[in-house]
């Protein structure tokens, strides 16, 4: 059963810690609970999005630096 990681807050989603650095995770990567998978920028502050279930990254449902709403699905994990 696929697991959805949702944005806890509205803002802008980033897949990288900073523009010059590589992405946190790629499709196909194995992740464990507590891994950082992205950042949400809200009102000029940054908040890490943590993985809340172990699995493999199946897809990113949103592009890097696109706006997100609270509750929007960011990533889908395969168990």
């Amino acid at each position, binding site marked *: 059963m696929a697991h959805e990681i949702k944005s806890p*807050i*509205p*803002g802008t989603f980033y897949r990288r810690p900073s523009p*010059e650095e590589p992405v946190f995770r790629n499709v196909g990567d194995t992740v464990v609970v507590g891994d950082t998978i992205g950042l949400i920028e*809200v*009102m*000029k502050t940054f908040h890490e999005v943590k993985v809340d279930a172990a699995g493999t990254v199946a897809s990113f449902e949103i592009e890097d*630096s696109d706006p997100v709403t609270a509750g929007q699905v960011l990533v889908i994990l395969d168990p």
Partner: protein
Amino acid sequence: MRIKKLLVANRGEIAVRVIRAARDLGIATVQVHSEADAGMLAVRIADEAVNIGPPRSAESYLNRDAILAAARATGVDAIHPGYGFLSESGAFAAAVEKAGLIFVGPSGATIDLMGDKAAARMRAAKAGVPTVPGSDGVVRDMVEAAELAAGIGFPVMIKAAAGGGGRGIRIAEDTDSFGRLAHQASSEARAAFGDGGIYIERVIERARHIEVQILADGTDAIHCWERECSLQRRRQKVWEEAPSLALDPATRERLCVSAADLARSVGYTGAGTVEYLYDDATGDFHFIEMNTRIQVEHPVTEMVTGLDLVAEMIRIAGGEPLRIRQKDVGIDGHSIEVRINAEDPSNEFMPCPGTVTGLDVPTGPGVRFDHALYQGYAVPPFYDSLLGKLIVHGESREAALARLGRALAELRIEGLATTAGLFEVLRGTKEVRSNAIHTRWLEPWLETNGAMISGMMQREGETVA
């Protein structure tokens, strides 16, 4: 007055403030906005509005070409940059002038000069303004920087020469941490601004933040007295006052005159603020930096001087000489401003964008609320969390504190968490009442009193619900 139509290149409460000043002067207004801001109050009240791009600031409020294109399309004579965004970009000011328009602020060259912390510090020293002991210029060699730091004495503050807004400043306690932090600061500055130069100065442990408002027309400069902004969290001001009760009359005079002298010495034009650290223990003040724009907290100065600073800066930009003489700028009573942010003080000041479902605005004698809200307004997540500023005036600080209590009790913002409740607690705190505070007082106080603040916010939440 050469300005008949003004473009406002900003958003939120300051855009509303600029439109009001322009309208008082009989000037038509054009409000530019991002796609996310089509419903903002400034768009509603401006004569015209132009969509300049996507929500991201880099593609809208920082997009020089889009703003200049909007200016050409609407036939404005001038652009007001507000604060933040392009307000302190010398290149933007120069581009506006090159396009044959008026930039409401100093020239691009003056912005660049005073925006370079090391250069500004040298100009201040030359004008006779005391500076904090530090590196006399930008340092690019980190070995040399470490030697300088040891000479200045720890703790020292490391700033990017090209940075600003209090962000990215690091404090090193000793040689070891200096080596690491200076390297970080330098590479970060190189990535962000293309210049890895840093600037070092001694940390004054218990300092007040005192700043002087100035107005200048390129020939003459006057000061409009000082503001004290010592209550800060993460180097962002949360509460500001005018005047500062920490200063005796002779020190106030020397401090304020030094700011006007500095402005005059660089041929400054428009409104600006010279910032200082004031050491209670020694009575010394030290120049930190100059902000070449209108500031968030300008209303407390307006409340005690009776001036309209935004209108004055527009008049100066329109070619009028200073209308006010120094001896006519007085101080009447006391004013306090608190910043109402969309942040939750009971949850580590987590930003809380959302929709305003209910709004009661406090009014009455001595109360002013500069804000960008209306019932049904959806606060977007893409920008600063400042919703508005509650400003009070009274015949004394005590009277102003009482009015602040009255105004806070009348203020009601439903639908999202704000910092309003925090100020009622702060207002009742012994150190705040007796003004026994400094720039590093608020953060530890918030740590210590976190549970009490959460409990208070909870109760407030229940009564609102």
